[in-house]
């Protein structure tokens, strides 16, 4: 529970909606409690984690240098498995990146109130995940320094990019997604940056926040335009989420490789992305909630609803798995059938069955309400889903490539230390980014929580009035 004393204690009053905000606080208290990690000194735990993540980032830098200066041949890729860890990591990270926008934008559109406690962290996570994802398309190129060939500019070669390629779509989609989520995130941050500016004591901090908040005053005109703009961007971001992972799935579905060339991929990828993103949100949110003592704003109700979402997304993903194999079998194409059968029984079958366990069986725990609200179980499940979703991409990318049309070319794949370093290095980069975010920016949107409380209070007030009127003699019936 939070150590901030609520101005009104948690009551037994059934009319007080306790679930989304435990206790009622003064607006100042809310700001103080949510800005505490930003304004106070970091603890040893934070430093320790930063140390671990930095070490991983150093490893990442080393691996990137080796990749750039020796060549992508330091990876385990071969012919036929010309795509492997690079693309797997890319799809995994970009999938994780989807939860932020989902929670932020879609829930905003639906007017879900529970969104406001978790959206900031989810969005931050999105940014770092997309940034990590963005590294890979560049690094996996044979000649990364020629990336500008992808840009449609009038060159002295008179050459243009080739717009029928899903990779061209992909580049545009990622850049769009990165840009839009950054703008969306920054826009959401503006009022909180102003709060931080006004709460901080040291002048240099106030100036720094002052610059970042761009002079936000919270005027009625500001709020009006901000809310319109924010809502519209949410409206744009929602189909964007769907489109980005659809396009990522096109990288595979548009190819004619058995095991890739299937129409189930777009919805299946989107569901998988949301699934993995939710899992990663939970992976980060639960420890943050505990360490930063955010129980008053991230309540059991939040955990419950996140777990339900995870279950739903998991069911979608399970449907995707079943359909994929059903299509393979029902289509009757021997190449397709082979691609599906080696998933289940081939060299990568252990990975496939781990995927099945983590992504299909584990979420079934959350039919139980008790488990849905247990942070430990949730966290464990979320970790397993993260692993499962990574392996799912591994299986999707590597297995069809290693055994395709001509058996003469079949060959299997093994990663190298550079591959493993890049994966763990981006985990470190992601962690470092998130840790810095926790230290530098308010992890929960302050103004939104205040507004939420204001709304809750007014509805409670209204309810009290109604009750009072009903109870008053002569009132009611």
């Amino acid at each position, binding site marked *: 529970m939070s150590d901030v004393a609520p101005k009104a204690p948690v009551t037994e009053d059934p009319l007080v909606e306790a679930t989304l905000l435990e206790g009622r606080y003064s607006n100042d208290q809310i700001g103080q409690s949510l800005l505490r990690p930003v304004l106070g000194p970091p603890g040893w735990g934070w430093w320790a984690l930063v140390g671990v993540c930095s070490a991983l980032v150093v490893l990442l830098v080393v691996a990137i240098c080796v990749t750039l200066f020796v060549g992508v041949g330091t990876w385990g890729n071969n012919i036929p498995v010309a795509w492997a860890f690079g693309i797997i990591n890319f799809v995994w990270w970009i999938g994780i990146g989807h939860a932020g926008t989902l929670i932020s934008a879609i829930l905003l559109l639906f007017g879900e109130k529970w969104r406001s406690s978790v959206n900031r962290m989810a969005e931050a996570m999105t940014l770092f995940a997309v940034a990590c994802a963005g590294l890979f398309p560049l690094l996996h190129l044979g000649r990364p320094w020629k990336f500008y060939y992808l840009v449609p500019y009038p060159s002295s070669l008179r050459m243009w990019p080739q717009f029928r390629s899903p990779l061209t779509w992909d580049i545009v989609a990622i850049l769009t997604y990165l840009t839009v989520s950054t703008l969306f995130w920054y826009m959401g941050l503006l009022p909180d940056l102003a709060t931080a500016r006004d709460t901080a004591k040291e002048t240099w901090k106030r100036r720094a926040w002052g610059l970042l908040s761009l002079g936000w005053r*919270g005027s009625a005109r500001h709020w009006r335009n901000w*809310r319109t703009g924010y809502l519209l961007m949410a409206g744009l971001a929602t189909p964007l989420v769907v489109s980005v992972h659809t396009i990522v799935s096109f990288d595979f579905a548009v190819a004619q490789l058995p095991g890739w060339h299937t129409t189930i991929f777009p919805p299946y990828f989107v569901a998988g992305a949301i699934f993995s993103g939710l899992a990663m949100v939970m992976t980060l949110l639960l420890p943050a909630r505990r360490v930063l003592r955010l129980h008053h704003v991230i309540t059991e109700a939040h955990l419950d609803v996140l777990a339900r979402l995870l279950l739903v997304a998991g069911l979608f993903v399970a449907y995707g798995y079943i359909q994929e194999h059903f299509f393979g079998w029902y289509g009757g194409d021997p190449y397709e059938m082979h691609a599906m059968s080696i998933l289940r029984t081939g060299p990568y079958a252990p990975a496939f069955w781990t995927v099945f366990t983590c992504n299909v069986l584990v979420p079934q725990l959350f039919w139980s309400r008790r488990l849905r609200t247990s942070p430990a179980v949730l966290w464990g499940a979320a970790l397993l889903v993260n692993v499962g979703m990574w392996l799912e991409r591994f299986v999707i990318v590597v297995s069809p490539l290693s055994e395709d049309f001509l058996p003469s070319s079949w060959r299997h794949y093994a990663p190298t230390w550079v591959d493993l370093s890049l994966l763990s290095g981006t985990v470190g980069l992601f962690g470092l980014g998130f840790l810095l975010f926790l230290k530098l920016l308010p992890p929960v949107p302050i103004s939104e929580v205040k507004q939420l409380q204001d709304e809750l209070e007014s509805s409670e007030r209204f309810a009290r009035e109604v009750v009072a009127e009903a109870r008053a003699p002569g009132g009611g019936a």
Partner: protein
Amino acid sequence: MSRWLLGEFRTSQQLLEAARGLRARGFTRMDALTPFPVEGIDEVLSLPPSRLPLLGLVAGVGGAGGAYLVQWFTQAVDWPLDVGGRPLHSGPAFIPIVFESAVLSAAGALFLGVLVACGLPRVTHPFFDLEDFRSASIDGFWLAVTVVDDAGRDAADAALRALGAAQVSLVDEARR
């Protein structure tokens, strides 16, 4: 050089009531400054409807059209290359980029539009000279009344205090 009289209220309800009161007393050039958006204040202040949706639409359509044009021109007109026997003008294949470009340009335009419409960045607004105004982003609900002359100032001061302002301060842009 503008001058404003700023009054601070403790709750959003008080702010709303005060704004209505001021309006009833004939003050029209007002602004509310609050830590979170207060429902109903827009009507009281009679803010015009935002034109951001239109901006978003225009930018989105423009982005989409531009993207299609670029793709059509580069693939089918400027250098028609035989790519896998596919038609030069491969409409369906151009859709993903058209969509992404629409979202990108609409979102970008909206972001800039919000900043422009809010008059941001503006870190040196005179209100910030007022130390107590810091509460506007924490727990204070402020009303700013634009005053022209000293008479107006006194009238607004009286009205704000009468409507329950916890404190009233004058901000004069000229006196900086």
